[in-house]
């Protein structure tokens, strides 16, 4: 390599420290990458449902890794008192994991907490995370003939990955919710938990 390099070279990825990582990533780079992802999947599928499923699967892989990494980073915060950082904490309750997704995951991924977290009124097992405009949708416009397709399926996949890995299997979908007085509709991530999650919650009291 030309030039003096002060960066320590690690021979293997396992020896690299699991640090805080970069706090900022280029938005345009991400938008470009995401648009390529969507376009690539578009060429591979015939219908909208399949496209949504593929985006969700892509997000699922991200979510599974996100959960472990964030739990680990939360424990390793420098200014926490020594005794507090000793015991790792993982989420065992429903509200715990939901607020973890709503604040911590959103903050790390999108730079801010989600706009709101609501419990569904019709069904016991439904929760909704709303966002005025999802970061992934910012540079995307859906043509009329694609109907209700929402690229937020990627984010729904991330949420599903986090919940599934944490032990709360759920069906997660992204929907547009039109708001009066605003041009662009609000996006809602709808989380519907599996039967066993509610049973376990009831049992844990």
């Amino acid at each position: 390599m030309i030039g003096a390099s002060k960066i320590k070279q690690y021979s293997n990825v396992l020896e690299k420290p699991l640090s805080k990582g970069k706090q900022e990533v280029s938005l345009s780079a991400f938008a470009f990458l995401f648009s390529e992802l969507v376009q690539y999947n578009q060429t591979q599928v015939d219908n909208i449902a399949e496209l949504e499923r593929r985006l969700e699967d892509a997000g699922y892989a991200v979510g599974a890794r996100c959960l472990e990494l964030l739990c680990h980073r939360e424990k390793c915060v420098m200014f926490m008192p020594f005794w507090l950082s000793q015991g790792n904490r993982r989420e065992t309750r429903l509200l715990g994991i939901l607020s973890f997704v709503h604040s911590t995951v959103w903050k790390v991924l999108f730079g801010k907490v989600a706009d709101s977290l609501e419990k569904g009124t019709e069904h016991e097992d439904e929760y909704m995370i709303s966002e005025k405009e999802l970061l992934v949708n910012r540079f995307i416009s859906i043509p009329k003939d694609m109907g209700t397709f929402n690229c937020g399926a990627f984010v729904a996949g991330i949420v599903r990955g986090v919940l599934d890995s944490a032990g709360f299997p759920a069906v997660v979908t992204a929907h547009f919710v039109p708001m009066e007085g605003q041009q662009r509709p609000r996006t809602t991530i709808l989380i519907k938990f599996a039967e066993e999650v509610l049973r376990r919650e009831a049992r844990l009291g």
Partner: protein
Amino acid sequence: MATTASFIIVSRNDIPIYEAEVGSATKREDAAQLHQFVLHAALDIVQDLAWTTSAMFLKNIDRFNDLVVSVYVTADKSVRCITLKAFSIRYFLDIFKHTRLMLLHDSRNDDGIKSFFQEVHELYIKVLLNPLYLPGARIASSHFDTKVRALARKYL
């Protein structure tokens, strides 16, 4: 000090994705099977305990003769256990399982074991972050193996 210790990482389908004998004592031929059996028998207990506490390190959950099982449950519900024997019949109250780290040992070194688990947990996260690694697949990396054994020598 000669210690027997057997270390297994169990995925959420109860399939071991990594196993190693990390003790410093001489091995008998049937020791490996015995250790594996004990570790698997302890899985039921882990299953029940995992949902009652939000801590990750579950100390001595099971005993067999002079061997003790200690378990560390990760956030994505991977279990790591240190084995000790226990026979018990449990009903599955939850089908969902975490990934677990399990260690079977005969010493009483709780702090050392906890640090060992935390370090291996970090290694596991690094393996998991690989986008080409399928969660739940066997960890076949020799680097990982070397590092786990080095950690075992250091902490156990």
